[in-house]
């Protein structure tokens, strides 16, 4: 039922009363604009942080060793200890909840420039890892390939290097693949340049400055014996990694003669716990966004009803005249409500578009900022935008209906006399 005459009337009434139309529209516009921008910003923060960890196995936990804090079985407190390769074998065989297990050795990382190639030298974080490590903390090969099982078995002197290592150790036009790096005195062939998919960082240092070699090669080349400095595990589906973490700690304490109540001796960390914290944080941000957004929207709606009330008061006489010359109350209400809805929808639509536009501009700026920003892809979902718009339409109807009913309840003659 599209009544062109009705729309002509509405548009001309709004046009002829520019200021009040503008004021009404602005309240709504601002409400929805703020809602969009804020929720977009909240989403951007969430995206930024979650992008940094999304590729990380959320069911993973990490273990390292600390000095003991309680004397046990004849050992004094303050003892230094290490995991052993036998621990790894034991866990692999006996703990069925473990999906992947990747022990790690640290290279000579504190000794200044540990990597040399001709004239070039650099200090990098060198690790000896199992190929399974890439399944826990995802890396992608930019060039070449990742370290694999065969490298492990054959104890090949090969390595994967981060992007920063390429910058420092190679010229601009050089292809690092197949080249050799002297790492703490031993030559390794570069088989892949790797890019970290996550920004969760284990062991400190920048991920771009990482060199990863096969665990077995490192152990043999640098004489690590059966030591293991660090290991990562993931739990099988259906097992909570927190439970697995506790179980493994107990086993390890038992195997290394550490007091069961010693909380300090085993350092550990599980991503699940961090994710729960993150999620709580983002739910918090979202709730806050909604509360503030709905508050702003409500303020807009109240503004609209307020202005509508004033307008009706201002138009009492006009409405009286219209009724005296034959307008039915239905016509009057239809007009006022249609006017109000038209205004709110237009304003809401503009607010929505402009808000989305601002987010897009922000997005372009952020994209140039690179990977390091913890703020990316500001966006709002369509459902949210549309439901906000729906709220506005309903609000527009109510905002128009209440004053319209009031206007019609005044007798035409009183309305006309109202000066």
């Amino acid at each position: 039922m599209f009544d062109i005459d009705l729309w002509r009337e509405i548009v001309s009434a709004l046009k002829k009363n520019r200021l009040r139309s503008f004021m009404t529209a602005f309240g709504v516009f601002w409400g929805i604009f703020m809602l969009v921008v804020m929720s977009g910003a909240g989403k951007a923060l969430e995206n930024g942080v979650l992008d940094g960890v999304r590729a990380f196995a959320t069911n993973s936990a990490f273990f390292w060793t600390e000095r003991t804090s309680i004397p046990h079985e004849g050992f004094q407190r303050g003892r230094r200890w290490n995991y052993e390769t036998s621990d790894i074998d034991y866990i692999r065989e006996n703990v069925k909840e473990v999906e992947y297990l990747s022990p790690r050795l640290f290279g000579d990382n504190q000794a200044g420039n540990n990597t040399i190639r001709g004239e070039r030298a650099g200090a990098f974080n060198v690790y000896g890892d199992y190929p399974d490590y890439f399944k826990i903390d995802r890396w992608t090969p930019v060039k070449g390939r990742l370290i694999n099982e065969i490298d492990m078995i054959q104890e090949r002197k090969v390595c994967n290097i981060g992007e920063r290592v390429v910058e420092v150790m190679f010229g601009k036009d050089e292809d690092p693949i197949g080249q050799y790096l002297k790492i703490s005195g031993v030559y390794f062939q570069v088989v892949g340049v790797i890019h970290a998919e996550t920004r969760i960082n284990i062991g400190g240092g920048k991920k771009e400055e990482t060199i990863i070699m096969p665990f077995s090669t490192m152990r043999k080349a640098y004489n690590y014996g059966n030591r293991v400095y660090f290991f990562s595990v993931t739990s099988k589906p259906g097992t909570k990694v927190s439970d697995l973490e506790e179980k493994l700690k107990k086993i390890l304490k038992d195997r290394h003669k550490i007091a069961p109540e010693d909380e300090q001796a085993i350092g550990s960390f599980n991503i699940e716990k961090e994710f729960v914290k993150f999620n709580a944080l983002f739910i918090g941000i979202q709730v806050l966004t909604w509360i503030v957004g709905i508050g702003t929207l409500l303020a807009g709606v109240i503004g609209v009803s307020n202005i509508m009330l004033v307008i009706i008061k201002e138009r009492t006489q006009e409405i009286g005249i219209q009724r005296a010359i034959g307008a039915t109350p239905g016509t009057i209400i239809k007009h006022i409500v249609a006017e109000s809805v038209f205004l709110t929808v237009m304003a809401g639509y503009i607010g929505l578009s402009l808000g989305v536009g601002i987010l897009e501009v922000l997005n372009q700026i952020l994209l140039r900022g690179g990977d390091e920003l913890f703020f990316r892809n500001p966006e709002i979902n369509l459902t949210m935008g549309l439901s906000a718009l729906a709220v506005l339409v309903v609000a527009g109807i109510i905002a128009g209906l209440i004053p319209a009913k009031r206007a019609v309840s005044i007798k035409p003659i009183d309305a006309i006399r109202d000066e």
Partner: protein
Amino acid sequence: MIKLNNIHKSYEMGNNSLHVLKGIDLTIEQGDFVSIMGSSGSGKSTLLNILGMLDNYDKGTYHLAGNLIANMSEKKAAQYRNDMVGFVFQSFNLISFKNAMENVALPLYYKGVPRKKRNQIALEYLEKLGLKEWASHMPNEMSGGQKQRVAIARALISQPKIILADEPTGALDTATSYEVMDILKEINEAGITVIIVTHEHDIAAMTRQIIRLKDGQIHEIIRNGELKQFQKEYVKELETV
């Protein structure tokens, strides 16, 4: 045409009830030119409102063209108003943001007449009232007399049986008042019943029947012979002005 029988009307003012009309019996024939006079508070405006179906009455009966007008819904009343009655007000009451033509065309909009057609009819009526060149002017660009003529054109456009005018000359100077009265006279001569409320004797003297209200009742009805006398009295007064 109009038949009022013992009409009562009172207004609630807080706890007090104000009895404005106390039993009005009145018959107005088709084609009459009637003025209603009375001091303020005598109930003349209330009577006009009831005649124009802008207000309800409490007691009695009101027949308009043979139909009993009582307890009508607002919608029905609006339709009746649109079909039967044209209003002219003291303060013109044009819609300020519409030009003369649109103001005149408005009653037809409520009747659902298409835009082109109603604007064309509006122009015809403006022409009749000598305002064709002013069709696109806004009310605030026109003089009082012009505004009132636009208002009369608006009242006429729905081809009503009755024109109800509430102090149509109240805001106009004497010369313009007479122009407006001449127009109303012409309208009346075309067969439309014209009822005006006024407190100016000279204006009332130009009608063919004067109904005087006092304290909510009809005090006297002046017509024919007595009217001649009345007219003489006030025409003198006019000439001195």
